[in-house]
């Protein structure tokens, strides 16, 4: 059989690239990681993702794919070991629905709180409201995937890191242990799983990187 080639175009500070890394690691897939020097997008990136021009991009045997959740579904179908999505169609639908809810209703609110100058508390309140809803999908299980990590865990898990960064920089609360006990417990478990923990970028570097972003987004002078 011809040797397989798997390349991941990513960026060290991107939670979307991290999701894909987690999926590849959980499946035990060997891949070559290519760091994009954002904001200077390489000709390779532009060729592989002309539509969105963003990372992550997975290139499997020369064929490119973009959009992190779609990439994760692809990884799940291309490599059958350690399934990420459940077997049952209704449970699969729920996993996809919650991932979509997180990306479309939680993430923009968190970004909104981060980028705001003056309205961060209101936006954080909305973010908390939506994040709290995710607890419905946990239903007393240790992970969204049940006894082990699945699709929804790796779709949402990065909020445990980036959420804390936004809390520190913007001075807001996003994941509140008192009002979100299930989510908090899940995050503590999830981020300690060795294969997950090993991929997480340096907290200090992420914090500094995002402090820089925050200054730009809020037009702060200090």
């Amino acid at each position, binding site marked *: 059989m011809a040797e397989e080639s798997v390349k991941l175009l990513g960026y060290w500070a991107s939670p979307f690239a991290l999701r894909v890394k987690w999926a590849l690691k959980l499946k035990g897939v060997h891949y070559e990681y290519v760091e994009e020097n954002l904001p200077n997008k390489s000709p390779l990136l532009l060729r592989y993702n*002309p*539509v969105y021009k963003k990372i992550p991009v997975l290139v*499997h045997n020369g*064929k490119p*794919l*973009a*959009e992190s959740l*779609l*990439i994760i*579904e*692809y990884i799940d*179908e*291309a490599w059958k070991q350690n399934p990420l999505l459940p077997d049952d*169609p*209704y449970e*699969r*639908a*729920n996993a*996809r*629905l919650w991932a*979509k*809810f997180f990306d479309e209703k939680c993430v923009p609110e968190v970004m909104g709180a981060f980028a705001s100058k003056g309205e961060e508390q209101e936006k954080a309140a909305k973010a908390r409201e939506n994040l709290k*809803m995710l607890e419905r999908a946990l239903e007393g299980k240790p992970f969204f995937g049940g006894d082990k990590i699945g699709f929804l865990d790796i779709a949402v898990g990065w909020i445990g890191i980036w959420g804390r960064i936004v809390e520190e920089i913007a001075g807001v609360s996003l994941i509140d242990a008192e009002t979100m006990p299930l989510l908090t417990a899940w995050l503590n478990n999830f981020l300690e799983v060795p294969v997950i923990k090993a991929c997480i970028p340096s907290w200090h570097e992420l914090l500094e990187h995002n402090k820089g972003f925050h200054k730009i987004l809020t037009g702060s002078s200090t």
Partner: protein
Amino acid sequence: MAEEVKLLMTWSSPFALRVVWALKLKGVQFDSIEEDLSNKSPLLLQYNPVHKKIPVLVHNGKPISESLVILEYVDETWRQYPLLPDGPYDRARARFWAKFSDDKVSPSMWGVFIKQGKEREEAFDQVFENLKFLEEELKGKKFFGGEKIGFADLALGWIAERVCVLEEIIGVKIVEEEKFPLVSAWMQEFVKVPIIKESLPPHEKLVTKIRGIREKFIGAA
């Protein structure tokens, strides 16, 4: 066991239409329940408490919302007339174009529909950029799904079904055949497919409704 399939929808929703098409292509019997979105039913609020939107598919009492998620569920539950292709890469590409439809094409089309003057010109630029990608994807194919319609066609099908309505209302051609010959041909072929043709909402009623939406939006701006 008798199977119960219900679809909470509205007659004019392009998202609900995607699901109608999928169910009909698969020959699945279903009850359609018309929702009044200005007065949402307890059933809708019960079945979609998070988004409170249609379409919602209810299969043997279990609700699923979000049209593209419903399409995947329908495809996995009823295996006849597969909507997604077999291979993982082709499946991923079909999903990609479906997402592109909602992320990019739809908002850009809305922009052309409600904006005016310079803002509309800019919206047109966005639409043309998006259509170029679709034109490229259709090279050598009759439909996005190949010889017959599939997942991506159903996701993008609102273009074939609805752009003529938008064009009629704003009095401007959006998808010109000279500029986008493949997309134009696809639009014509798509609405000719019998299941699609028989499910199209009544044209005049749709024009009236959407014209009303536009006027309300522009009036409120």
